[in-house]
C-alpha cells in the first residue's frame, strides 16, 4: 500500500474515514489528495507532492485530454468529421460522408472551415463522455491521412 505511506497516518477522520480507508479510496479515484485537510499543511508538503505525482502517473486522473489538430498538415478532407462516432450520432449528414449543417450541432466535435479542420467542443469526446471500451476511441487520430490529429494528455 504505497499511497498509505505518504498520508499523515494520524487517523484524524477529518476526511470522514480512517487513513487506510482513505488510501483505498484514493486508489480507486473516489477521493482526491486534496480531500485530506492535514495533508495540505506545510509540514506534509513533501508527502503531498509525492502523492500527487504517484496518483498522476498511476491513475491519470490529474491529466487533461487534449486533441490537437495541426492546421499546417491538415488538408480538410473531413475524414475526422465523418469518422468521429459522436458526430455520426448527432449530425445525420455525416453518415453519408457529407459535411454537417451549419451552424454546428452542439455535440459536434469537428468541422472543416476554410479548408482546415477545426475542433469545436472537446467535452463530448468519447474519451471523456463514454464508458468502458468506447472510452478508448482513437479513430480520428488513426485515420487522418495527414497525421494531423494528435490525442494527448497534459
Amino acid at each position: 500500500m504505497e499511497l498509505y505511506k505518504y498520508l499523515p497516518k494520524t487517523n484524524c477522520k477529518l476526511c470522514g474515514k480512517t487513513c487506510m480507508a482513505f488510501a483505498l479510496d484514493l486508489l480507486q479515484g473516489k477521493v482526491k489528495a486534496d480531500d485530506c485537510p492535514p495533508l495540505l499543511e506545510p509540514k506534509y508538503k513533501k508527502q503531498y507532492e509525492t502523492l500527487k505525482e504517484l496518483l498522476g502517473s498511476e491513475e491519470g486522473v490529474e491529466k487533461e485530454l487534449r486533441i490537437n489538430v495541426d492546421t499546417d498538415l491538415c488538408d480538410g478532407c473531413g475524414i475526422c468529421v465523418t469518422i468521429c462516432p459522436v458526430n455520426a450520432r448527432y449530425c445525420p449528414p455525416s453518415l453519408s460522408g457529407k459535411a454537417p449543417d451549419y451552424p454546428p450541432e452542439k455535440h459536434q466535435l469537428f468541422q472543416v472551415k476554410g479548408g482546415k479542420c477545426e475542433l469545436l467542443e472537446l467535452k463530448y469526446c468519447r474519451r471523456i463522455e463514454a464508458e468502458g471500451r468506447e472510452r478508448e476511441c482513437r479513430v480520428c487520430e488513426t485515420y487522418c491521412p495527414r497525421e494531423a490529429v494528435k490525442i494527448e494528455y497534459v
Partner: protein
Amino acid sequence: MKRSVCSGCSLLCDDIMVKSDGIYIDEVFGACLKGKEKFDQVTSQNRILSPLIRKDDTLQKASWDEALQRTVDLIKKSKKPLIYGLSNSSCEAQLKGIELAKLINGFIDSNASICQGKVLDNAVNSGITLTTITEIINKADLILLWGSNAAESIPRLLNKVLFSRGKFRMTGREIKTLIIIDPVKTASFNTMGVRDVALRITPGKDIELIKVLKEECCAADSIPSEGVAGLDKDDMKRLLQHLSGAEYGVIFVGQGLLTPQKNSNLINELLELVQMINIKQERGRITLAMMGGHFNMNGFDHVALSMYGKRGNLHFKDNQILETDENIISKIENEDFDCSIFIGTDPISHFPMSLSSKLAKKPIILIDNRNSATLQLASIVLPTTITGIECSGLAYRLDHIPIELKKIINPPSKIPTDEEILNQIIQKLKSDGGN
C-alpha cells in the same frame, strides 16, 4: 449560408456551405483545402482581369474590342486551327467550343483524351459498367486504389466512399476493406486499418501483376513462388481473395495506369481481369470508377457523344465530321496545325518540351483566368470567369452524373464567361463573313 457545389475537382462535392453577400465570399465550410483554394482564386494576385495582346514581344493590356478583333483576324487567317482544353468549363461552353470548331474547320479535343477518357473508351468497348459515388457509399465493401493517390488528388473521396456509413449497412469503415497498389507510400496509406492491404509495387510493373492475376484466375497456382513486381505471393493471393470475395468492389483507376507499359494497353488488361473475376464471383461484383482532376473532365465526352457520337478528337471539314485516328498529341507532334486556341488549360506546363516548342512556334490564343506558363507564350489572352463561382453551368462528376453548378458572386470587372467569349468570337466570325 447556402449549400453549394465545389468545383475544385471532379468530385464536385455538393454539400459544402458558402457564406457570401453576393460580392465577396466570407467563409467556406465543408470544402477541403483544394476546394477552398479554388474559391481563393477569385481574388488571387495572379488573376487576369483585362485582355492582353502581345506587342513587341510583351503582353500588353488591350480593350475587349481590340482583343476580340485580333482573335477573329488570327482565326480567319488560320487553315488548321486547334482547340483544346475545356475541362475547366461548363458543358454550355463546351457546346460553344464545338460550334466554333465546326465554323472554322478546326480540330477540337478536351484534356480527357490524354487522361481518364481512355478508361471510358475501354469500358464502353468491354461492356463493363462504371459505378456512381452514391452506389459506392451505400454498397461498397471493397475499395481498391490502383495507382492513384486519392488523398491528394481528390481529397474528400476517401471520406465519402470509405468512411461514410451506407444506407444498407449499419457500419462504416469497419466493414470496408481498402487496398492500395502504389509504388510510393502516399498520404492515402495513412487511412489504412489492420485488415487492409498495402501493396507497394515496383514502378512500371503493374502490367506484370495484372497478367499473373489473370493467369491465376484461369488456373490456380500460377503465381510464381518468388512473387511478381516486387510483391509477395501471399499478398497477391490475398488481393485476389478480396477481389473475388467482395460483395461490391470498386477499383479506382489512377494516373499510374494510364500510361502504356510494355506497349500493352493497361486499362484493357485490367478490364479483362475484372471480367474474369466477375465470372468467378459468387457473392457480388467488381466495378470501376474513374478519377479526374479538372472538375468537368467528363463533360466534353458527354457533349461530344450526344452531338456527334464520338467522345473526343472531333475534326471538322465543311460542316462534316472527318473520320480521323489523330489525337491532340499526334496533331502537335506532326505540326498539323497553324494556330491554337486553349481554353482553361496550361498545355505548356503539361506537355513535354518537344510538344511545347512546336506549340510555341504558332500563334496561341488563350482563354483562362490566371497566369500560367502558356500565358507567357500566348499572342492573345482573354480573361474569363471562374465557372462554379462566378457563373453557373452544367458539369459531369467523375462518375458521369450531371451536376448543376451555381453562381455565387458576380465576376470582377464584368469579365465574360467562357461561353460568352466563345459566342462573341462565333458571332464576329459570322458577321465578318467567315473564312
